[in-house]
């Protein structure tokens, strides 16, 4: 009874509120076709407005993620433009709707590249689309700053691709680290949807469990969107796990969690960042009740700070962006919006550091602006430091960026309560390193 379909997977999340996003996503998408007006990888003209593309689903079930990409982008652009832009250029964010499906994303990417002469950067984050779209962006020489977790990009070969969130396999190690150091349990049931995104967690979890002396009592790869998982639940419980680690789409989760409750499971459940969102919350609460969801469920997600200059600047930009941001109060702790904010800011700082808006020229500076001597937390700070001849290390709202040779950078992690969206326990880099066997 498969009712499957592609589901986007974004590699990191924190405190997001997806609720309002769908409607706005649809509204924004209506403009999507005409929004991209620039393009290509050529240097921009003297006074051209430079475009950053939010390449995301703005229609379909993953439309909320597109809203977050756009929100982060427009907040950053507001801050950049308010600080005078880059070499006389101002910026704008354009919506490119990929619908979360490779079949739609590839033509959307091609069209975007072909029809946007002033396109200088892309922010995106969909694991399931990366293998299809990143080569296209790379071929067009457009820097792509991504939040996608596709593990194939752990050893990325594309010079124009940059990722400030870890691959999904690192998320798997983090799950093991949390179980070991956050719960003290040793017997894990790994229950993941059989889609690419969810399965990306499993190797890290299994390997991490082995390194930490944990036991995977049962590992079930479940077909999505079935009408019942009762038989699977019987198999899971027969293995006597102490904790269930899971990721699936909301409707699958609703049926699965309902089945677990029906069968009498009262133990803890640990979700990945793929369990983030109001739809998952609704399905889970309908299945097991709000009290149980709050008391027994945590999700392991990338953690972003909620204080300091970077966060205050992000928050101010979010509220100052006006009607382009639907609900800034909800979005201020949403890492899916914070990541594209930092990504957009990094693109602009790289241009400043390179003294060029040509992607071919400034692309290498995306890394250099995270390696300098002067730590900066905002675009304005970075611009001033660069103007003073200093080298900068941009530490934005999502924290320190440190790219490896594959253009990947990991972040901080926390176990978050799904109802309060507050971290209940941080997962340290030391714990994750132990899970990775280091």
């Amino acid at each position, binding site marked *: *009874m*498969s*009712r*499957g*379909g592609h589901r986007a997977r974004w590699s990191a999340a924190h405190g997001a509120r997806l*609720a309002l996003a*769908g*409607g706005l*996503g*649809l509204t924004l998408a209506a403009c999507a076709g005409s929004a991209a007006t620039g393009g290509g990888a050529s240097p921009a003209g003297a006074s051209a407005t430079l475009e950053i593309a939010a390449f995301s689903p703005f*229609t*379909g*079930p*993953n*439309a*909320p993620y597109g809203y977050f990409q756009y929100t982060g982008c427009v907040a950053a652009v507001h801050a950049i433009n308010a600080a005078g832009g880059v070499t006389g250029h101002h910026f704008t964010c354009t919506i490119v709707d990929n619908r979360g499906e490779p079949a739609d994303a590839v033509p959307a990417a091609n069209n975007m590249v072909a029809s946007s002469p002033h396109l200088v950067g892309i922010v995106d984050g969909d694991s399931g689309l990366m293998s299809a779209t990143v080569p296209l962006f790379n071929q067009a020489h457009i820097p792509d700053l991504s939040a996608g977790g596709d593990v194939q990009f752990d050893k990325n070969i594309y010079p124009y691709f940059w990722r400030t969130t870890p691959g999904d396999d690192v998320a798997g190690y983090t799950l093991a680290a949390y179980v070991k150091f956050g719960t003290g349990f040793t017997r894990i049931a790994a229950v993941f949807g*059989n889609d690419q995104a969810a399965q990306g967690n499993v190797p890290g979890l299994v390997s991490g469990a082995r390194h930490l002396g944990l036991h995977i009592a049962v590992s*079930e*790869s*479940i*077909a999505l*969107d*079935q*009408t*019942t*998982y*009762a*038989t*699977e639940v*019987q*198999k899971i419980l*027969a293995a006597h796990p102490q904790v269930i680690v899971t990721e699936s789409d*909301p*409707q699958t989760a*609703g*049926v699965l969690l*309902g089945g677990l409750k*029906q*069968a*009498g499971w009262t133990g803890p459940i640990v979700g990945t960042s793929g369990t983030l969102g*109001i*739809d998952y919350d*609704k*399905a889970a*609460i*309908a*299945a097991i009740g709000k009290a149980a969801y709050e008391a027994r469920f945590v999700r392991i997600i990338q953690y972003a700070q909620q204080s300091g200059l970077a966060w205050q600047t992000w928050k101010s930009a979010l509220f100052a962006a006006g009607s382009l941001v639907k609900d800034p109060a909800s979005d201020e702790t949403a890492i899916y919006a914070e990541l594209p904010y930092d990504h957009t800011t990094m693109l602009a700082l790289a241009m400043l550091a390179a003294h060029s808006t040509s992607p071919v020229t400034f692309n290498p500076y995306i890394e250099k602006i995270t390696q300098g001597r002067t730590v900066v937390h905002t675009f304005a700070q970075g611009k001033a430091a660069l103007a003073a001849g200093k080298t900068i290390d941009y530490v934005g709202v999502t924290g320190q960026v440190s790219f490896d040779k594959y253009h990947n950078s990991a972040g901080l992690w926390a176990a978050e309560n799904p109802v309060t969206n507050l971290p209940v326990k941080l997962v340290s880099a030391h714990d994750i390193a132990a899970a990775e066997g280091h």
Partner: protein
Amino acid sequence: MTLLLSIIIFGVYSAALLAIGAVGFTLQFGVTNVLNLAFGSILTACIFAEYGLTGHSTNLWIAMAVGAASGAVLSLLIGHVVVGAFLRRGATGFGIAMVTIAISLMVQFGLEAIQGPDILSYSAGSQATMNIGGVVLSSGQLTTIIVAVLAMAAVQVLLRMTKFGLAMRATAADVSLARTCAVSPARTRAVTWLISGALCGICGVLLGIGEGSFSASTGSDFFITLAAAAVLGGIGKPAGAMIGALIIGIVSQAAAAVIAPSYKTIAAWVILIAVLVLRPQGILAEFAADRELVA
């Protein structure tokens, strides 16, 4: 032992859910000869209608009644009015199938445009459970099985023991001949669209309750398996659809237990193909001669 019992019980539950819809789908095809590919979207629309009309009814029987009524009305509108209009203009079977696809997409994306991409939580009836040999069955699941048995029995009684059932079978077999026997094919088809829609609505409500949530694509996705059950049993044969549903339900649960959950859907489709290789017409159906499409 508990696992075996689980396979049987939840195989039957899955089959019950499928059978209610599959019988409605195949009954309508058998009598009208119209391949209604909008069936899944109607199913979704029924859940939305029930959800909207009763404000999330807490009474399962009321929910099913509202779902059935919604489905009947929608089905009649689509079948008798829209499809009928095309039939009167001489549309072919393929053309009509394309029209129903268009209707399906209009309904699905229309619902998505109104509701947005978010899913809606859905529940009705008691949250009570019963334990059968270590396997816990919810009241909603038990009700689904009971409703399926009653619906199947009712359809069989209708077809085999009533004058109208005779008219349906006559229309399904030979429209021209049915007319000579004072059967009104148009009236028979209209009532068949109603019955099919009612079963679709009941199936939709029970599906939504079983899953605890729904979205604009819930019915369309479920329809693929539902149609497979109908094809497996022999398209146009209600009894065949029941058997097809039972096979798919049991096989998928057994595959989840014995092989791996990822293979439950694959196993069901392998069985479908294997059966169709041996009996291309399905388990119960005979090969149909060219049949007339009449509004």
